[in-house]
């Protein structure tokens, strides 16, 4: 296609502008995380890059105190970091395993044809509209503020994504391959386990990463179902935000950076499949 240099230049202007808007808040947070106290506010002038780069903000949130700071932190990031990792991973496992099995049954055996829409409905409602009974249940089974209680709800709310994503991957596996194996004497289980699963392995990995991102990003459920021991990173971040007062920007930024890294990295890894995941397989790229 012919593109005149003028049009191309104009395109770059827009693209660069858009990129700048996207990067502005991100960059601000990242550079803020490396700025020492005096560079945080307009009071002594703002600069994009730290004049005296420092790691003290990270030091502070990991050790609870840092060189040159009087304030200290009673709870460091370590606990919430572990909590976020454990609950996100367990929730992901639950969602991916049950979603994979169920979608395979729906795709291959034609079972429960209403299941796809039912699981989709889980995503439709504001969680807060249905949370009271859930919290009561969780309290009843002793699941509040436990790793498994949070993992369980994570597994449930991300199940629709896992289910639909795996459904599209299974639909892409030609049924002939499975038939061929079955004709040669394989049981259904063996066909599933030895033939189909290996074929959809990349899809499975995509699905797991995608669901992990969703779980990691949760704030509300952890806010409602944890109190202290299994508080996750976003909840910790939010409480710390006010705990440290309105002005401890550097530490907040450092926290934000740490919380933001895994999903951004994983997200870029599965870029190709994001559309499929986010639209429940309605669209592919």
């Amino acid at each position, binding site marked *: 296609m012919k593109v005149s240099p003028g049009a191309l230049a104009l395109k770059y202007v827009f693209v660069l502008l858009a990129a700048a808007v996207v990067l502005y808040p991100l960059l601000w947070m990242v550079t803020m995380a490396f700025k020492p106290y005096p560079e945080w506010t307009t009071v002594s002038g703002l600069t994009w890059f730290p004049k005296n780069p420092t790691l003290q903000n990270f030091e502070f949130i990991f050790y609870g105190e840092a060189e040159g700071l009087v304030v200290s932190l009673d709870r460091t990031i370590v606990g919430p970091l572990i909590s976020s990792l454990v609950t996100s991973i367990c929730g992901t496992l639950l969602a991916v395993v049950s979603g994979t099995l169920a979608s395979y049954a729906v795709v291959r055996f034609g079972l429960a044809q209403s299941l796809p829409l039912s699981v989709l409905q889980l995503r439709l409602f504001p969680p807060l509209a249905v949370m009271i009974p859930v919290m009561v249940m969780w309290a009843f089974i002793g699941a*509040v503020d436990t790793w498994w209680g949070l993992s369980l709800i994570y597994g449930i709310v991300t199940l629709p994504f896992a289910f639909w994503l795996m459904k599209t991957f299974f639909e892409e596996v030609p049924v002939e391959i499975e038939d061929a194996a079955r004709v040669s004497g394989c049981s259904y289980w063996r066909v599933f386990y030895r033939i189909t699963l290996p074929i959809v392995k990349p899809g499975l990995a995509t699905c797991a990463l995608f669901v992990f991102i969703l779980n990691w990003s949760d704030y509300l459920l952890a806010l409602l179902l944890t109190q*202290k021991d299994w508080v996750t990173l976003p909840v910790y971040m939010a409480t710390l935000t006010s705990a440290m*007062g309105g002005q401890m920007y550097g530490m907040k930024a450092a926290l934000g950076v740490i919380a933001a890294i895994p999903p951004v990295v994983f997200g870029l890894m599965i870029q190709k499949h994001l559309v499929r995941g986010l639209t429940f397989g309605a669209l592919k790229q």
Partner: protein
Amino acid sequence: MKTDTKKGFGPSRREFLKTSTAAMAASGMGGLSAFVASPAFANGFAPGMTGGPTGFEGAERFQYNNTMSEGRAIEGIKALQAAGKAPKKISMLLTDGAIGQITKPFPDGAPSAKEVWEKETGIEIDIIGAPAEDIFKKVMQDVTTGDGTFDIYTGPWNSTGDLVSSGGAVNCSDFVAKYQPDWGDSERGTPTPEMEQLLYTYAGDYYSFSLDGDFQTWFYLKGIYEREDVQEAFMKETGHALTTPNTWEEVDRISEFFTGKDFGHGTMYGNGNLMSPFWGLATFYARFASMDFPNYHFFDEDGNPNLNSDLGIQCAEEHVRSFEWCPPDALTFTWAEAYAAMWNLQIPHTAIYTNLVKFGDGYNPDGTAKSKATGMIGSHLPVGRQFGDQINRRSVLYYHITAWISSKSDYPEAVYLFLQWLSSTRTYTWMAGNPGGYFDPMQQANFKEPLVASTYHDYAMETIPATIARSVPSINFAGQTALDNALDEEIQAAITGQKTAREAMDAAQKKWERIIKRQKRNGIVEAIQASRKTWPTIVDPA
């Protein structure tokens, strides 16, 4: 919370450690780490004392033995530990801004309150912070769906009723009888037995542990009031001399006068009182309480709201009118922004929490003034209305950080003992002086303490107790959150011009009636009647 950082960045930690080490070395204590384990610790006590902070001048004022409330608590713990009924750890949900008061050493050379407790009992205190406005939500979350995560809840005193009726708090009456805290001590504790009842009991039983002094106290910019040009201008404009106000009428006159004036510090706004959602209710309640002599109650004897009575509507109209003299964005102010307004000399007066002066008047360790208002602030008695030759000065008790024992705690007695220790007059006085947080003074002993006076300033040492004596409780029974929110919404609607004061009060009246009706079976009318009895009747000569 803008204020906590004020304390955050004084001298660097290294410097800080250096000075405290030096102080400790001077008193023969060794380094900070050696300090906890040092056998020299016991030698730091004044004769006859068995516990308490050491290592600074005057520490003996906060030390105790087993004849004192704190000592009895420690003794009780020891007994529980011997019986195997004490926990290893007590976890406490606490408002963020107050944590430092328990965990930060004060003054130089001293340990923190937490360190003293842990040293003496071996029971670790695990503090989990939450924002002040939200903390009661978190409390209720734990009460309704939690699993014994916290041994201690803290939150606004007003919410005690809600917590008790939801079954979330432990009734401590037996413990109180057993361990005899000194809260009501006629010399050191609350000024009156009624006040003890108000702060520590609900429906006749002990539930709450008072850790704050949120009696809205009047502060003004003495340095501006006393200027001759200001005096002249005021006289010229109003025909009155500018003095500290005694009545709401005078308050409004001063507010009107200052609004839009510039006395060399930028444009001023006359009304510094809180008008925003949640926090502004205190201002309304204070004005409401003095509408009649000696008090105008929120409810009549039978539990019917007084909101849309003539006096109620008049109060609402005055309240709404006073909004025109507020600084811009006043509807978004929390106390922190209101403090800042006074520190920046934007408002001439305000009735507000007392740590306004703790954080904003005086000097930082590095010698810089804490704010522009340093040295200019004064304090006066609450205002009321003149009835004949008497004035019913009224303030209001609102928010007021209070601790409760979670009914899910496995060791309520041990937890009780910790809270008794923490809230007894010696420990609390010591903590109240600590600028690490916003627990405000309220016990008589607090106001006699030089360390408290040094942070809260001499001028407030008389007005705060006088204010306490003239304070009415805000709503403090089950249904409080709903009642407060209903009224709050309507007042906000009136202030922002969506409704007239009368319409707003009519609507609020209806909402309150509905809540009362629904809560009747839970004894809300009795609670209202009990609350009415705790209102002070003290009046002053005009």
